[in-house]
């Protein structure tokens, strides 16, 4: 394996805030996933998590540079399974995580509040997720084991 999570070896991708660019970005997740021979269904999960993170940045961040920055790393924790890590970073206005209400099927089906599932989907589909957000922007670091 010639790509690792030590920082030196990583693939970075910058996309403009523009319709459908999230799908163009999923191609990179798929290519890196295939590179480590991650099963197709797991790659699909990474792709959807990445899509959700990108459309959040597109919709909510108002990034000062009009871009979303992605970094892909593969690594292995000790002797554990290999993983694919995706970082999605925007230089936007950030948000207060404590103010985000957890969505539920009940709320979704009873009322007008159908949105609000993006972060929940990301957490459910990935094996670990770390979000840091401030006035400088938002960074989502998510990892999926092979």
């Amino acid at each position, binding site marked *: 394996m010639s790509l690792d999570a030590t920082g030196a070896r990583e693939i970075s991708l910058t996309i403009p805030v523009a319709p459908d660019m999230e799908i163009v970005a999923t191609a990179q997740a798929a290519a890196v996933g295939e590179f480590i021979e991650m099963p197709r269904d797991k790659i699909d999960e990474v792709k959807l998590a990445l899509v959700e993170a990108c459309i959040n940045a597109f919709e909510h961040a108002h990034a000062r540079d009009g871009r979303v920055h992605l970094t892909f790393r593969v690594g292995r924790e000790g002797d554990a399974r290999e993983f694919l890590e995706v970082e999605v970073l925007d230089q936007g206005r950030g948000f207060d995580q404590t103010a985000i209400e957890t969505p539920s099927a009940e709320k*979704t089906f009873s009322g007008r509040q159908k949105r609000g599932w*993006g972060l929940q989907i990301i957490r459910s589909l990935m094996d670990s997720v770390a979000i840091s957000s401030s006035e400088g922007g938002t960074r989502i670091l998510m990892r999926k084991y092979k």
Partner: protein
Amino acid sequence: MSEVCRVAAERRGDVAILSTDGYINNQGGEEIARQAYSHLESGARALVLNLEKTRIVNSIGISILIEVLEKVMDRKGKLAFCGLTPTIDKTFRIMGLAQYAAIYPTESEAVRAVSSP
């Protein structure tokens, strides 16, 4: 992987079968909704959504599918999904769609299930 989600429709009696091809985002979701509502207007009582050729549905797309489902339930109609990839199936379960709509592996099973006896 094309950006445009194509939606093909087929009508069998009072069942409308909509088959998607490609990424379901807001536009894709809205196209499905448009075709679904037009079939409901013209007398369809049940909808089958075949997502066999779709590998990604984002949360905005799903929220529109939920609106379609609600409209169908309001009219006491039926809606069934088929051809879901494991990831889409998982996402539908996360969002609770699976509690309100039936999910079948194949189109023929879905059509059989929603057809009037």
